[in-house]
């Protein structure tokens, strides 16, 4: 509370790059910052720096649609994201910064009986792993969200939903800043506007990182660079099973509270929530083609607007205020690629597609443990890059190759 009356710096001003760090984290987003924080906080590894080519949180951490949930399809996924949600629940208190985690409930709508089966499967997996989720019918949906059009009028009437009460939204920037502040306090050096341009390698290891501000020797390297993962890994001599796509979203002008839950419709490729500021935040499916070009598309706006109004006709005259795009690193099975690689001291957090932000704290905890102890935690063992070489995928995709 005293911070209210006396302004206090969140983090030290950017200093000079040291000649060497024990751990160099590439990427100043939620994953990189969380990893650095837990390295220092849990393992006492404080000789850590973060290299961020722009400002902290400038990538996916600050461009996602802030949804947190754990109702995944695979047991591996549900368990992993379940732990992440539990960490998020206490993170405001732990970091002393209000992340405004609003566990208002998350509803994934089904517009076909096939979709309902997929949800049933998720609900059953979730329950076994202690993740609160269940399939509910239109009457219960209406009770939770009376504003939703549950009639037969829409082209795709709502048949049911997967209800996930602990799911919700959070203030995404706050997560970045809180981790940054806490990491900085523990001595982690944060270097914004410091772009990695290459790696020096010897004996199958990365020995130094080259940046636009000079060279840094390193003990270990963590790459948490989402859409740019392929490029960073490429500098270390690694090829990844990743393609980069844009994901787009928009907000409306602020409106008084109207929608109290998070609504997702996979079939309509749209998800809708209302921020605490009152804006409706609406996002879509990723664009099908790979690109690093962050220009949005008009058709995204048109389709998302149409589908949002299908769900909420009341939004017809609400106004779109701002649209933006972010880069997503899509893996073949929609599960992350986390942990060790064939380059001995080069670790990755990648392959998140559109799910990365939900995993920030648990990525921090597990990657920090791996880097500090050299042992891969059980929780992330299934997400090793190696699975693509052995062809043992962890598929978050429900449908067959050709979706039904």
């Amino acid at each position, binding site marked *: 509370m005293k911070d209210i009356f006396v302004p206090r710096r969140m983090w030290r001003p950017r200093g000079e790059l040291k000649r060497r760090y024990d751990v160099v984290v590439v990427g100043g987003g939620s994953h990189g910052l969380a990893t650095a924080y837990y390295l220092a906080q849990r393992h006492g590894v404080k000789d850590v720096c973060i290299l961020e080519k722009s400002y902290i949180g400038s990538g996916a951490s600050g461009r*996602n*649609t802030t*949804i947190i949930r754990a109702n995944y399809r695979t047991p591996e996924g549900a368990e992993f994201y379940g732990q992440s949600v539990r960490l998020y629940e206490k993170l405001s208190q732990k970091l002393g910064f209000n992340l405004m985690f609003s566990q208002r409930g998350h509803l*994934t709508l089904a517009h076909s009986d096939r979709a309902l089966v997929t949800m049933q499967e998720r609900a059953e997996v979730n329950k076994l792993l202690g993740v609160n989720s269940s399939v509910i019918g239109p009457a219960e949906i209406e009770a939770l969200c009376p504003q939703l059009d549950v009639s037969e009028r829409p082209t795709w009437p709502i048949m049911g939903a997967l209800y996930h009460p602990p799911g919700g939204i959070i203030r995404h920037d706050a997560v970045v800043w809180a981790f940054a502040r806490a990491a900085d306090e523990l001595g982690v050096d944060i270097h914004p506007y410091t772009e990695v341009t290459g790696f020096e390698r010897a004996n199958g290891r990365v020995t130094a990182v080259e940046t636009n501000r000079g060279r840094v020797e390193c003990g270990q390297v963590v790459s948490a660079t989402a859409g*740019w993962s*392929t*490029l960073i890994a490429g500098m270390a001599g690694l*090829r*990844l*099973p*990743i*393609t*980069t*796509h844009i*994901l787009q979203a928009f907000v409306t002008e602020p409106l008084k509270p109207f929608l109290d839950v998070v609504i*997702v419709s*996979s*079939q309509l*490729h749209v*998800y809708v929530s209302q921020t605490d500021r009152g804006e409706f935040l609406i*996002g*879509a*499916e*990723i664009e*099908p*083609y*790979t*690109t*690093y*070009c962050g*220009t*949005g*598309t*008009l*058709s995204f706006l048109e389709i998302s607007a149409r589908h949002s109004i299908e769900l909420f006709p009341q939004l017809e005259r609400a106004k779109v205020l701002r649209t933006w795009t972010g880069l997503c690193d*899509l893996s*073949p099975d*929609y599960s992350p690629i986390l942990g060790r690689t064939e380059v001995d001291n080069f670790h990755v957090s990648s392959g998140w597609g*559109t*799910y990365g932000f939900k995993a920030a704290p648990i990525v921090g905890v597990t990657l920090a443990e791996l880097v500090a102890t050299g042992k891969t935690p059980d929780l992330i063992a299934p997400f090793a890059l190696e699975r*693509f*070489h*052995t*062809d043992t995928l962890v598929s*978050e*995709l*429900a*449908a067959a*190759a*050709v*979706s039904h």
Partner: protein
Amino acid sequence: MSFYLPCPYCGPRPVDEYAYFGEVTHRPGPSPSMRELTDYVYFRDNVAGVQREWWQHRLGCGEWFLADRDTRTNEVLDVLLPSPERVREERLGSPPVGAEPMASEVT
């Protein structure tokens, strides 16, 4: 609707008329190792720069072609027709199944 893509037959059309099938891959010869096979099936160059890739003019003439596109700007520098000769020379491999990322819960 975003960038225009020049169909070799129909001329420039909005990208929404096309199906995208990813960067070209190279199919290994007979009896590859698991590693060689998975390199082909899963791993991608995903370059930030000019990439040769597969497109089909789904809503138009329906034909397949190759495009050289700069993924940093979406500018298409060239379009080429697939020919068995080209395919043999370049050992072109299969695109991912399905034209678009598969339906999943996006967030």
